């Protein structure tokens, strides 16, 4: 199939159509408004339905209803809108229903700004809403990957009967890149299985409900969810390692668009003789802890760069279990690290690690420290601290 040049938001909409999604409920908010705009035109063409809800709260209950009757459904929003959907997502997770949610993150907190940010990482992977539930969370780093992951999101949502979220920053939504859709035409309808409320004639009635006043039963629901999340953790970890096949002194950890910016910086540093690898989680939940740890062990030091104030750094610390020093630099408010700024941060960490330009015979990361965890040190926040001083 030929490649087309498409804006991320429109490509996300088209990917949902190709995956066989026929319902969209949502509310416009920059920087993702092109998704509803695109789908408002495209869904009727394929016999689907598009409804602009009166609010994100309503939209989250509309997707709950659509999934409940066994019709494939998408909603998209941006940070403040996702917060409003939190309650609905908890209900959907409790009832084990398949929905896909896309969050094109903007600067926060509060109304924040409309420019790109990654400040909803913790919200997505640790605490979307109340109760013991978990979203599967995928973080694309290109328009093509956004397309692939939206299609995968529907597959995972239906395989595990659970809500799946795709998180990208404003850049993913707004930029155009060549994309190829892996699916021709429109995918088959959702299999309603033995759970959808699609008419009880000739069978026993089904009930979708998240109120369970009997503690025994409510405990069982939680245990079942836990078992499901354990299966997802086992089967669905995805990641990318870049420049890690050769020895490296510094491991950079970044997700989403920040990882793209880091790649440019890493390439330029490689030309200057520095050895830097990149670990990028694609599934930020389930987080690929084991792979991350292995990659960390091969480096002298670790640097985390994010477009937030250090949200993923906690997962990197969990992965490393104190075996490596971790530096962190963050930027927020819609200010994006440029490749040059990222390079500066990498040079700082390389210097801290005592790693210079590579020559023949440069020593490998010392294996002496392995197995003897150093004292865990809090992530450095030199970047934001400087900013605070300036204000």
């Amino acid at each position, binding site marked *: 199939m030929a*490649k087309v*040049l498409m804006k991320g938001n429109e490509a996300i909409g088209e990917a949902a159509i190709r995956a066989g999604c026929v319902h969209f409920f949502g509310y416009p908010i*920059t*920087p993702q408004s092109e998704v509803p705009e695109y789908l408002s035109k495209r869904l009727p063409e394929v016999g689907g339905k598009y409804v602009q809800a009166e609010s994100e709260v309503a939209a989250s209950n509309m997707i709950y209803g659509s999934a409940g009757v066994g019709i494939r459904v998408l909603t998209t929003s941006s940070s403040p809108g996702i917060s409003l959907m939190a309650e609905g997502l908890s209900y959907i997770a409790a009832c084990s229903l398949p929905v896909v949610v896309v969050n094109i993150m903007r600067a926060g907190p509060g109304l924040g700004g*409309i*420019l790109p940010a990654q400040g909803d990482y913790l919200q997505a992977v640790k605490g979307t809403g109340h109760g013991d539930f978990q979203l599967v969370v995928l973080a694309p780093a*290109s328009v093509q990957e956004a397309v692939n992951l939206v299609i995968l999101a529907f597959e995972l949502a239906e395989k595990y009967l659970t809500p799946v979220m795709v998180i990208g920053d*404003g*850049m993913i939504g*707004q*930029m*155009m*890149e*060549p994309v190829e859709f892996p699916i021709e035409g429109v995918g088959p309808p959702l299999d309603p299985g033995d759970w959808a409320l699609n008419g009880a004639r000739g069978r026993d009635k089904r009930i979708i409900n998240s109120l369970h006043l009997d503690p025994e039963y409510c405990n069982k629901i939680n245990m079942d969810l836990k078992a499901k999340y354990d299966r997802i953790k086992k089967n669905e970890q995805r990641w990318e390692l870049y420049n890690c096949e050769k020895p490296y002194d510094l491991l950079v950890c970044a997700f989403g*668009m920040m990882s*793209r*910016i880091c*790649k*440019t*910086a890493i*390439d330029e540093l490689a030309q200057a003789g520095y050895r830097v690898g990149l670990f990028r989680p694609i599934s930020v939940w389930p987080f690929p802890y084991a792979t991350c740890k292995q990659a960390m062990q091969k480096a002298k030091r670790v640097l985390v760069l994010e477009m937030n104030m250090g949200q993923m750094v906690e997962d990197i610390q969990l992965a490393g279990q104190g075996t490596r020093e971790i530096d962190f630099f963050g930027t927020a408010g*819609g200010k*994006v690290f*440029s*490749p*040059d*700024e990222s390079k500066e941060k990498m040079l700082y960490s390389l210097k801290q690690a005592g790693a210079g330009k590579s020559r023949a015979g440069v020593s490998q990361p010392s294996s002496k420290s392995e197995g003897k965890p150093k004292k865990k040190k809090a992530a450095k926040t030199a970047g934001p601290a400087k900013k605070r001083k300036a204000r």
Partner: protein
Amino acid sequence: MALHEILMAGFGGQGMLLSGKLLAYAAMTQGREVSWLPSYGPEMRGGTANVTVCLSDKPVGSPYISSPRILLVMNQPSLERFVPKVRSGGLIIVNSSLVPIKADRDDCTVIYVAANDLARTAGTVRAANLVMLGTLVGFSKIIDRETIIKMIKKEFKAKAKFIPANVAAFKSGYQEGTRARGGSR
């Protein structure tokens, strides 16, 4: 090095985003890797709008570039904001019809092109963005002329009466670029 980072800036409505799209589209049809990243902040209304286009033989790393190798500016605010950021040894193309000042960079190649005047001569002043794109292509040869012309025809398919003037504007810019190349090298 087959990586081109091009920043195109002007007022919203001057068509720099479209110029960038035509360039990205043309490069994509040749099988190259491309990215097109617009500014979409609150500055778009009444202020400057800009787009960063990357063309590469490898997958594009960062689509966000703070110091581009090539800069096209349609207006003075864009010149003041972006000229200092161009990488040393880079290329700057200035629309001298609208920008009364010079780009103060001895370490870069600077081309002044009267884009609005040339576009008016070609048939419509609204095609000044294509004069600028033509100058870039004529000077740098980062892509062949005919592919861009094909893209212009495709873009204006629904408004076919605008095709001749836009193609003519692109060609006159291309000539300016070719001439500048002959002069400076």
